[in-house]
């Protein structure tokens, strides 16, 4: 420890005596060993952090121009898009950023499903991650309500009323959330406060915890074997490489690719054909004009499809809540010895593949009107969604115990 602290002279020594900069870099970057076999799925953690920072920065500037309030919110967003120099860039980056946040987070979660990253000893890492996801959903929902377009209004109406299905306290709770008998000024000002102050703080704290927990256990990898169990003579993992410079440089390539895709959407198709910004939301909120189909933004639609698939609203709300909360129990439902899908049997592969397809199908169905064949399909896929969680303990126990290699799979370039 003292060796690194004494390094260098002059200002650097002065600084390190007072702030352990070199020590931090040594512990967390150059001396932190990560498995060398990360593939493309391992880009999305650092990218999620990047989007978070981007949302905070663009959010700071959007907040300077946004005026929460029934009469002012919609106009202030249009003013920002049209009359503030590069206001359109800020607003689009922030709005498109929300969708990209979820793209990245869903891929990050899919990675954990594929390689069993949620399994011991990383159960808490997964649970903290899921709390980030829940906080992010609340953050995104409120952010969607703020511009106060017609879909903001009606979407908020549907989502807030869901809390009314809670027995006993429901109706009072709904009123408390809205701050009024209907959605209006009081709702917007409190959502604004929560969106720019409370939830960003919560998310930042959870991200910090997520990273601390990651450093404690070390990263999983596509082979799902623990590199710490195979140390070299120097006490370092044989299959590990220093995070810096190897993964910092690799992640920068990921950042470049991500920003290119992001810029293409922001500059050329910011509404993404009505998927990232919905048409009806370019009309101001109007309590007397319901949009033809009320659909939340794409990242909520899997759960929305489950809600609508159930004829009884209370049961629907309960199943929807369950479908989100189910993720939390994954580490204990998966009873396989092996983590990675690479070393599990065909049944596990089919089960997981079906789950991925189910999630995407529900996402698509949530965007469709709830009539005809769509209702039937939504019911089928809702059953399949929960079937995954019910079957997982048995399937994973049965076919996740084969032999695994001692060393990770890596082909040098």
């Amino acid at each position, binding site marked *: 420890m003292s060796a690194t602290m004494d390094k260098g002279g002059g200002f650097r020594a002065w600084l390190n005596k007072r702030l352990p900069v070199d020590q931090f870099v040594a512990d967390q970057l150059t001396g932190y060993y990560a498995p060398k076999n990360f593939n493309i799925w391992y880009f999305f953690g650092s990218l999620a952090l990047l989007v978070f920072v981007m949302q905070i920065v663009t959010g700071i500037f959007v907040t300077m121009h946004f005026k929460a309030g029934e009469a002012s919110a919609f106009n202030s967003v*249009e003013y920002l898009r049209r009359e503030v120099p590069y206001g*359109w860039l800020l607003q689009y980056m922030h709005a498109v950023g929300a969708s990209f946040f979820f793209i990245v987070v869903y891929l990050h979660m899919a990675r954990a499903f594929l390689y069993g990253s949620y399994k011991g000893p990383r159960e808490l890492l997964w649970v903290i991650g899921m709390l980030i996801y829940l906080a992010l959903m609340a953050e995104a929902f409120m952010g969607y309500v703020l511009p106060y377009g017609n879909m903001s209004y009606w979407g908020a109406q549907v989502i807030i009323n869901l809390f009314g299905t809670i027995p006993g306290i429901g109706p009072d709770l709904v009123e408390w959330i809205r701050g009024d008998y209907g959605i209006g000024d009081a709702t917007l000002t409190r959502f604004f406060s929560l969106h720019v102050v409370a939830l960003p703080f919560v998310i930042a704290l959870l991200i910090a915890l997520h990273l601390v927990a990651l450093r404690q256990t070390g990263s999983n990898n596509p082979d799902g074997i623990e590199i710490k169990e195979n140390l070299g003579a120097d006490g370092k993992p044989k299959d590990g490489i220093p995070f810096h410079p190897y993964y910092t*440089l*690799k992640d*920068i390539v990921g950042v470049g*690719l991500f920003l290119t895709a992001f810029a*293409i959407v922001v500059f*050329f198709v910011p509404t993404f054909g009505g998927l990232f910004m919905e*048409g009806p939301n370019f009309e101001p909120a109007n309590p007397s004009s319901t949009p033809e189909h009320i659909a939340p933004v794409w990242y909520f639609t899997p759960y929305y499809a489950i809600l609508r698939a159930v004829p009884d609203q209370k049961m629907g709300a309960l199943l929807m809540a369950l479908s989100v909360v189910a993720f939390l129990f994954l580490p204990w439902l998966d009873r396989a010895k092996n983590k990675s899908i690479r070393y599990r049997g065909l049944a596990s592969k089919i089960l997981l593949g079906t789950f991925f397809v189910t999630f995407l199908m529900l996402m698509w169905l949530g965007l469709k009107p709830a009539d005809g064949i769509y209702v039937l399909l939504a019911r089928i896929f809702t059953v399949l969604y929960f079937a995954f969680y019910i079957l997982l303990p048995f399937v994973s126990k049965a076919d996740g115990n084969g032999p695994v290699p001692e060393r990770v799979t890596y082909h040098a*370039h």
Partner: protein
Amino acid sequence: MPTKFASLLGALVLLAGASGSFANEGGHAGWQREADNEVANLPSLQRGARNFMSYCSGCHSIKYMRYSRLAEDLKISDKLRDEMLVRPGEKFSDYIVSSMPAADAQEWFGKPPPDLSLVARSRGSDWIFNFLTTFYADPASRQTGVNNLQLPGTAMPHVLASVQGVQSAVWDNVEHKGEDGKPVVTTEFKSFEPGVVGTLTPEQFDEFARDTVNFLQYVSDPAQLERQSLGIWVVLFLLMFTGIAYMLKTEYWKDVR
């Protein structure tokens, strides 16, 4: 250059198109057409602005748009702007707001004419194009004498009758199976027939409508012209950045065995 690059981004545009159909709701009636307008076409935007100011702005506002911004983006000279665009008693920095009192509008049409600043985003340009081109004579409509395929029962009179003329609709009785399996007869639109002739031919009128739609699409997001030309440089820079980052990464990763 911008259009060439846009074609390079074809894959993404396709993706966006797919997402469009992804979010698309309901069926697509046979008479519906695509607006096929091109927002980069400046003369078309200028003609559309002229059409809008002559035929629409008496009743409809584009309240988020200033005369000055419009003139600047559409390359209309200050002289022409002040003479032709800005209405008497208004300044060039004013927003383009209809002078029709809301109470009168309510009485005349049953509802105030909506602001059109964002209609191209909320409804889409194809919707506006079909709305503008499918007015037809309908004696059953006592208020205006016309009806519309895209928005049946619209409160809007056929403002463009002098240029389009007034066409009449031919209907067909179509028999198909109802939900309970019994045959149901519904009346479906078949085609238009020319009625009263306007000053423009049907082809010319389509162009007229297309220009107007194009203008409204520009108005819905005036930054889009600047956005796309700036975007090309941003994307080019990022691709270069990614390329260099990749080479740097490869160089370092040679050591990893």
